[in-house]
Every structure is written in structure tokens, then in C-alpha cells.
């Protein structure tokens, strides 16, 4: 019986979420009184994982050009069987969400996704997960012997815990891939909403796309990703990939700054999982003021430039 953590990577670099799941897996292994194995597929430098408590890293190297759900699920299954693992922990990157259900079927496991905390009990195995678009939680019992746990982004966090680890290489057989990667396009030089610790988001209150310069500048001072409300992307002021909310992207950042966004329920559904929410809005009755932690009632065109200047000074101090 052991815990197998899948540490996902992209282009040979571990994703930030990989460190979260390793931290989480370490604790679950302790709770179960078992050991933890960390699996990487064409991953990064294993010593980065040692920093989060990974003593045993299983490396699979092959010539897969990029993520492939079927192949990754097959590799995970082979490692589960070879190492007699019973609990598989997977992150909440899009790839994590894609491969986890395949793994669950392959190893006949119950799967709980969007898990926000350590198991409250490991026998029976009960975890707390987000549901109803962040308007509730459900405590789920996984009743099967094998289990798959998907850990929600930024919920448990990455916890440094330096150990001296070792690497074992593992030969896995790949199935027919079924789906072939043709090309990948990634925005370079910008922080993606999924990875960002801080998100600066703006709404229709910005009046037009020509006013986004200060939003981008604020984001760059903070090392943040930029985002927007739905009407803003519908109007074509910003790309669709930036639309946050029920029908757009979910945000689980540490800090979410909402500028000129009213805070309609559909928008809030996508930002509830963020830890600290700040709202800047000229309308004191905007619903966002009920959902946020900090706020300034004021005109964005006055507040944001001041915020940029003061933050620059703050960063330099």
C-alpha cells in the first residue's frame, strides 16, 4: 500500500501544481502510515521534488512529444500495479483533470476531484471537495480499495520539506495514442490565469479596450495575470481566454483584484475560490462589495494610476 503522486510537467518543467500534490501526498502517506512515490513523465529535475518531501521519484522517459491522456493513464496504471500503490494523487491542471478519470477506470478506483483539504479520515477515506461552482462543499467517501484524489489548485498549497531523495527509472509500455498532437500555441511572456498567484481583472467599468493599458501595467507591477468579465470578452475588448466566471475560467489565486466589475453572481462563481478579493468600483452598491475582503469606492481612472505608482514605490522599498 502506498501513495502514488503524479507530478505533471510541461516541456520538461514541473508545473507549480506538481509541488502542491507532492506536499499533499506526503501528508496523506503519513496519515495512512505508508510511503509516497512520485511519478514523473518526461518531467523536470527531480531534486525540485525532493524539496517538497519526495524521497522516491519514479522517472518515465519516452519520446512522447507532449501530454497524451491515454498514454499517461497507461503509464500510471503500470506504476500503480508494479509498486502496489492504492492511492493516486493528481493535480488540477487541465491535463490532470483529463487523465484522472482515465486512471480511475483503469485501476477501478473511486475518484474525487476538486479536493480542498487533507482527508478527514483515511479509513473510511473521506475528503472535502468543492461543488456547486464554489457555492458549497461535499464531504465524499471513496469506498473502493483503489482511490484517485484530484487536489484543487492553491487549496492545500506547496509546503517545503527538504529530503534527500532518489530516482528510479521505469520502463512503461505505451498504448496506441488515439489522439495525436499537431501543434501547441502558448502565449509567451504573460502569466496565465491558471498559474497566477495574483489576478488583476477588469470589467465594463473600464469603458473601452483603449483603457486596458493601466490594467496591464498594474498586472506587470504585481507579476499578475490579467482577466476580465464576460461582457468585456463578448465585446471583443479582451481575448476570450481572459473571461473569468461561471462560464469562463475559474480563478483560485491568492489575490484577485476586480476593477469596474459589478460582481454578478455568475462572475463571482468563478472567483470565490480566490483567497483575498479586492474591489475597486465607483458604485458603492455594486454587489462585489459584499463578496470582497477589501475595497475602495472610487473611480478606477483615478485609483488605478495611484495604485500603480504606490505599488512601484512599495516594491522598490
Amino acid at each position, binding site marked *: 500500500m502506498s501513495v502514488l503522486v503524479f507530478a505533471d510537467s510541461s516541456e520538461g518543467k514541473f508545473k507549480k501544481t506538481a509541488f502542491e500534490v507532492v506536499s499533499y501526498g506526503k501528508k496523506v502517506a503519513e496519515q495512512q502510515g505508508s510511503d509516497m512515490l512520485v511519478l514523473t513523465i518526461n518531467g523536470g529535475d527531480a531534486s525540485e521534488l525532493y524539496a517538497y518531501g519526495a524521497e522516491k521519484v519514479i522517472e518515465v522517459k519516452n519520446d512522447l512529444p507532449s501530454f497524451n491522456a491515454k498514454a499517461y493513464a497507461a503509464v500510471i496504471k503500470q506504476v500503480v500495479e508494479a509498486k502496489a500503490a492504492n492511492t493516486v494523487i493528481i493535480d488540477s491542471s487541465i491535463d490532470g*483533470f483529463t487523465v484522472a478519470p482515465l486512471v480511475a477506470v483503469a485501476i477501478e478506483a473511486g475518484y474525487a*476531484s476538486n479536493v480542498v483539504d487533507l482527508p478527514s479520515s483515511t479509513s473510511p477515506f473521506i475528503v472535502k471537495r468543492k461543488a456547486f461552482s464554489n457555492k458549497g462543499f461535499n464531504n465524499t467517501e471513496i469506498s473502493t480499495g483503489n482511490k484517485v484524489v484530484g487536489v484543487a489548485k492553491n487549496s492545500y498549497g506547496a509546503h517545503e520539506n527538504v529530503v534527500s531523495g532518489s530516482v528510479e527509472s521505469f520502463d512503461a509500455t505505451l498504448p496506441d495514442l488515439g489522439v495525436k498532437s499537431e501543434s501547441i500555441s502558448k502565449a509567451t511572456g504573460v502569466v496565465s490565469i491558471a498559474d497566477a498567484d495574483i489576478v488583476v481583472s477588469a470589467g465594463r467599468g473600464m469603458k473601452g479596450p483603449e483603457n486596458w493599458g493601466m490594467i496591464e501595467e498594474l498586472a506587470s507591477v504585481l507579476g499578475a495575470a490579467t482577466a476580465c468579465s464576460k461582457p468585456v470578452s463578448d465585446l471583443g475588448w479582451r481575448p476570450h481566454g481572459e473571461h473569468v466566471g461561471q462560464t469562463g475560467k475559474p480563478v483560485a489565486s491568492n489575490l484577485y483584484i476586480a476593477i469596474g466589475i459589478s460582481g454578478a453572481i455568475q462572475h463571482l462563481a468563478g472567483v470565490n475560490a480566490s483567497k483575498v478579493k479586492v474591489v475597486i468600483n465607483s458604485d458603492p452598491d455594486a454587489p462585489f462589495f459584499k463578496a470582497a*475582503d477589501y475595497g475602495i469606492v472610487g473611480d478606477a481612472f483615478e485609483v488605478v494610476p495611484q495604485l500603480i505608482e504606490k505599488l512601484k514605490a512599495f516594491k522598490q522599498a
Partner: protein
Amino acid sequence: MKILVCISHVPDTTSKINFTDNNTKFDTNGVQYVINPYDEFSLTRAMWFKEKQGASVTVVNVGDASTEPTLRKALAIGADNAVRVNVAPTDGLMVAKELAEVVKNGGYDLVLAGKESADYNGQMVPGMLASLVDFNFVNACVGLEVDGTAVTLDREIDGGEEKVSSVLPMVVAGQKGMVEEKDLRIPNMRGIMMARKKPLSVVEPIGAATSTATKDFEKPAEKGAIKLVDNVDALIDLLHNEAKAI
């Protein structure tokens, strides 16, 4: 092409979420049910195939009789027929197994679903279904074309998009971007009238076992009142010293 679209019956996005029976049951009181918003993208794409390339479109839901109005709505939007698997869903794997039976018996080429349902947000049924019936699978799809049996897709990845190719039969989990939002369909009067006459067959479940169970629910902790400040210095101070967010 025979298309099956999986339709999840979920509370409308504006619904108040409450629990009853000592927080063990979802309170359906006053809740308006709709076609899962993610499924709408897939259903609309299916309509496009039907109209542009010729395809038959079946919609399916695993649920008790209370979900029929949602299936009728999908018929009113233009699906040809509907199937309801007569069992209240309890977990993702059980739903996937019931759907797999429908897929195996129906000879479908393309199964479309939404990447998650807006109630339990599991993000698991489409992938599990694909594995169970051994179809190719693409998740978080934002673009889908079919030419004969060749399929080209765009899928969202963290920080970008990936173009992939595959072949039918496939399960594809769609999301916003798969079709333009302005193209999403609302049933019109004629559609609603026609939907009444379209076949909605009820099949009995195979009795798939569940692998997870909800013990109880919780609501998010009540939020403390917002701290309003009137200048950016105070805001920066709070964010740094109190919230430790910068």
C-alpha cells in the same frame, strides 16, 4: 454520423445553494433546473453537424423522471430523439457506466458532453465513459471538425491551446469556445411544439455500482464584512501586513 450528446440537468447558475436533512441532501426547493451550460456548447455543435454535414442527434440523461423537461428542451433545440436512463445519479463512475451501456447499444460515432456539470463539478464522466467504451477522448475542447472519420480538435491547455487530431469513434468534452456564445440556441415555439412529438425513450439502468458517496455538504464559511478604505496607501498596507497577499 450518429451523435450522442450527454445532457446534465443542473440548477440554474443563479440558484441559491442550500442543504437539508442535517446537510445530507441538496435542497431543491425553488431551484430552477436547466441544461448544464457546458453541455449547451456541445449540443449546439451537434446541431451544426446535423445541419451542415448531416448527422442524427440523440440526447441522453441519466436521471429520474424529473429531468424530462430538460431533455424536452434539448429536443426543442433540435435533437432528434432522447434517451433517459431511469436512475438518479449518485456518482461519476456510475453515470459513466450507465452511459457506456447506451453508447454500446446505440452504435454512436461521436459522443459529445460538457467538460463538467455545474452542480458537482466532477470533471470525470466524459473521460470515464471514453475509457469504458474504448473511444478516443479529448477534454476541454474549444474547436471540433469532423471529416469522414478524421477529427481535428483544439483543446485548452494551461496557458494556451493545442491542436490535436484523432479518428472516430470519439468522446469529446466541450466548453466555452467550442461554439460562439451568440450561436447558442434557445428553443422557439415551433421547436417546443415539435419536441412534444419526438421520441423520448426510457431505459432501465444496468445497476452500476457506485465508488464514492456524499456523506454531507457544507456551505462556505460566512465571510466577514469588507474593509473599505479611502486611499491606496491603506490598501497596500492591508494587503501586505494583514492579508499577506503582496
